Each structure stands twice: as C-alpha cells, then as structure tokens.
C-alpha cells in the first residue's frame, strides 16, 4: 500500500470521546485512559502532542457507534469491520475515529473472543495521523485484528511503524530512533484500572498459579505465539512477545478434547510437517488440529518409539526440523517427516552444551533460537550454535511473563527490572534512520 498523502500541519491536536459504548463493562474513565495511552504511543516518538478537550471542536472526535452511522463506512455487528478512522485534512471528519459499538471491547482480558480496545485504538489513531494499511506481519497498521498487544503503559511500536510515522512528522526531540521511549517520571498520566487479579471483587481461583513464581509444566511455540502451561492453566504471548493477559486461561476452555480430569500436561510442541499440535501427558499423547483434538486420540507415546513412562519435554529444532524428546537425562531425536526415531537414541547427552541435564520443556522461537526451560530459569541457544548463549540462564518470569515491579502478582514475587540492557543497534529490518529535528 502507498503512504497517505495527508498529514497534520499543526503539531498540537485535541481529542475527545464524544460517544461512549452503550453497553460495555469498560467504564468511561477506562476508555478515556485507553485512548490517552493509544495516542501517547504515537506522540512519544513524534513531535505531535495530543490533549483531551471537552467541547465540540476536537480535532479527533472518538465515537462508539453501531451499523450505519452516516459516514459511508457502516459497521456490520460483531466481528467483520471493527473500527475505522479518517485521515488528516481539512474535512470536518478528518482525524475522527469510530469504534463498532457491537463489538465486545476488552482490556486486559483473557477472553479470546473480545476485541482489545487499546490494540485497535493504536491502529486507528495511526490512520488519524496519516498512516495507511501495510502488509508487514509485525506492523500495528496491518488491517487485520491480531489480538491484544500487551500492557498499554509499556507498548512499543514495531519498527516499521516508527519509520513510517517518522517519514511524515520526523522524530520527537529527545527520542533516539533506536531506543525505547522513556516516560518522564514527573508527568501525570491517567490511571488504568487495577489488574483483574488485584481487584477485590475478583478473587483468583484457588488453584490458579502465580506466573511470577511458578515452574512451568510445558512451554511451546504454537502458530508463532508462545504458550506457557501450568496445571490446568496457560498464558499466551503474541508473536511480538507481548503477554495477552496477566490472567491465565483454562486449558480445557481453549483446547477442546483433552480429558476434563487432566490436571496438567507434560510437554507440547507444534509439528513442523503439518502444523498439528501434539500434547503429551503420561503414557498418552493427543494430536490437535487448531484447537480441536483429532479423531482417534489419545494414543500411546510408544507410537513415537518412546518408552512408557512419559516425557519431560518436546520441541522441534529450527536448524534441522527434527523433534527432540527429553526424559530425565535422556534425549531422543525423532524425524516427523519419516515418522520414526533416528538411530543412536536415546542418548545421555543433549546436542547442546550448557543445557541443564533435566528440563521442564523447550521450544523454538521466531528469532531462530532454541529456548530451554527448567525451574524459574531459561537458557538460549542461538540458531546454528551448539552451545548455550553467554549470559544465560535468565529469569522466565522477568523476560517472558512481565514480572517487573508493578505487574507482579504478589509483592514478594516482584522481579528486579533488567539492569544495563539496551539495544545499541542503529538499524532494524534494513531501515536506517536519521534524526533531523530542527
């Protein structure tokens, strides 16, 4: 898609929520706060400033409306089209943003069917300031809804989007094109409601584990996203490594067909040959197509040439697409293409130096590296390497499950923020960025 030819000539833009949703569990203050943070995503890195006003003359009028609302872009009920915004210009609707009031708008929800209001608002405000759709998978300006993008207070735009908005407005003074924007501590920001598990009205379920202190039963990359399984629950992270919800989802409510009395899993992996998802528990395994179990399962793990007694971990290594199974100090190499175990296994040594002798689970990730999990720590082996990367093990809670001070479940489990870590790269994805702010 080409870049829109319009942009705002002024740098100070006013906004207002003109019409709130008629029937939403999100309060007015939450919606205003989410709009504030979605706009802030863009003003953090450009010379644009947004301020909320009360009158009818706001540059960006925000409405929750249904069906035909007289702008030529009628909404179509739940699903389908969920929102739109008008590009900058002289027209009276320029910058205006409309959300479909028939959608189930959510915030920090584990409900897979809801629409995360913050994620959609960031996308729509991109249009309000002049960005068109783009096909890049990582971009927030991709036209399709891709699920929540994580905590509004910590959201960092994908690099493609930063570059495109910098092309329109330049870089905000004091912002390095390669560093994460930092929020000045003395600025006042609207409060977002407490995290669901901290609300006094919603008690965590008794068996719900604390993601910041637990050891995980299984970890897997499924459809490019990361899944952390513990007991009857799992947490999900998007392709960009954003935690979808701080609250875990129940395994049975998402993966349909596992026995209801199953209280935990041993290992999970996505088969590279046909993208089926394989779940292991004890001597049995289940094969899923998407989130439904296939006919004829469970079956015994001896199908793989594994002995009875269960496994600890399973993952497919990106380097050779072979699947590795682990049990205690033993490791097997399996060929999913040929559906047979490779000769010479089990072995008492893993192919990767520095990986712990016993594992909770392992997974490949989109950076090409293999990740090994044990206890509260994980180890990384870079693509094409046979040895654990320097600086590992690191904390699973801190690096994957957003357990920094503010977001941890309990004060006792708070992890310290990462020290002395910053990206020194001047370019990403082939873009070079020059900062010319004068």
């Amino acid at each position, binding site marked *: 898609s*080409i870049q829109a030819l319009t942009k705002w000539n002024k740098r100070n833009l006013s906004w207002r929520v003109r019409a709130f949703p008629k029937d939403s569990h999100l309060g007015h203050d939450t919606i205003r706060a989410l709009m504030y943070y979605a706009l802030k995503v863009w003003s953090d890195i450009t010379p644009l400033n947004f301020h909320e006003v009360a009158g009818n003359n706001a540059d960006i009028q925000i409405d929750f409306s249904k069906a035909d609302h007289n702008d030529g872009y009628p909404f179509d009920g739940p699903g389908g089209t969920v929102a739109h915004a008008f590009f900058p210009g002289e027209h009276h609707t320029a910058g205006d943003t409309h959300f479909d009031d028939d959608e189930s708008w959510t915030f920090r929800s584990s409900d897979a069917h809801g629409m995360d209001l913050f994620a959609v608002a960031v996308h729509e405000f991109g249009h309000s300031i002049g960005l068109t759709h783009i096909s890049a998978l990582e971009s927030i300006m991709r*036209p399709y809804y891709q699920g929540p993008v994580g905590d509004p207070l910590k959201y960092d735009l994908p690099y493609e989007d930063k570059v495109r908005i910098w092309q329109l407005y330049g870089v905000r003074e004091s912002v390095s094109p390669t560093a994460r924007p930092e929020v000045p501590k003395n600025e006042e920001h609207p409060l977002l409601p407490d995290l669901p598990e901290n609300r006094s009205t919603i008690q965590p379920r008794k068996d719900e584990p604390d993601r910041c202190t637990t050891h995980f039963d299984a970890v897997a990359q499924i459809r490019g996203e990361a899944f952390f399984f513990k007991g009857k629950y799992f947490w999900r992270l998007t392709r960009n490594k954003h935690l979808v919800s701080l609250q875990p989802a129940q395994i049975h409510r998402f993966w349909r067909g596992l026995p209801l009395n199953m209280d935990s899993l041993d290992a999970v992996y996505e088969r590279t040959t046909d993208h089926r998802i394989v779940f292991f528990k004890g001597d049995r395994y289940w094969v899923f197509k998407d989130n439904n179990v296939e006919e004829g399962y469970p079956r015994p793990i001896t199908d793989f040439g594994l002995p009875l007694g269960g496994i600890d971990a399973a993952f497919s290594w990106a380097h050779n697409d072979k699947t590795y199974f682990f049990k205690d100090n033993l490791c097997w190499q399996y060929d999913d293409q040929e559906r047979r175990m490779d000769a010479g296994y089990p072995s008492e040594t893993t192919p990767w130096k520095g990986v712990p002798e016993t594992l909770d689970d392992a997974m490949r990730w989109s950076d090409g590296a293999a990740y090994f999990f044990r206890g509260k720590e994980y180890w990384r082996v870079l693509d094409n390497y046979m040895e654990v990367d320097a600086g590992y093990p690191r904390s699973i809670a801190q690096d994957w499950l957003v357990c920094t001070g503010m977001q941890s479940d309990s004060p006792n489990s708070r992890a310290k923020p990462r020290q002395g870590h910053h990206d020194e790269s001047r370019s990403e994805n082939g873009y070079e960025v020059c900062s010319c702010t004068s």
Partner: protein
Amino acid sequence: SAAPKAEEINQGVDWLIKFGYLPPPDPVTGQLQTQEKLTRAIKAMQRFGGLEATGVLDKATLELMKTPRCSLPDLSELDTARRRR
C-alpha cells in the same frame, strides 16, 4: 480443496471491492467482473494478507476475509488508478 460456493464467491467479490482490491461495479454491466481481474484482485489480497498468492478463493483466503479488521481499504483509489494506468 473444494471449489468455493457461488455465495462465497459473491461475498468474496463484495469484500474485494470494499477493501480496494477491485474497482466498484460498472453501473452499465452491474456486478460483472472479469475472471482475470478477479484473479488478480485475489492475488493482491493474498499477498497483502501474507498468504500464498494463488488467485483462488481457497479456504485460507475465505478465512482471512472473515477475520475481524479495520473498515478502511487496504489499497487506495490512487493505488488502483496507478495500477490501471
């Protein structure tokens, strides 16, 4: 894979028009679109959506068309005009 039903093709054409991949129907010929134009539009949509550009309204393409999304077109009128030129 099974061929798409007539209803799915109609919905697909509407979708492609709505999001800028096909020009709006000619007032003289009504909804008629040439097969070549339709195939090209489906390919463009598939490329934009990260699917393999087959030009066929297959299951994955129809699924993507059902995915919740922003109402704005992916290709602007300027884009379409440029391609036409």
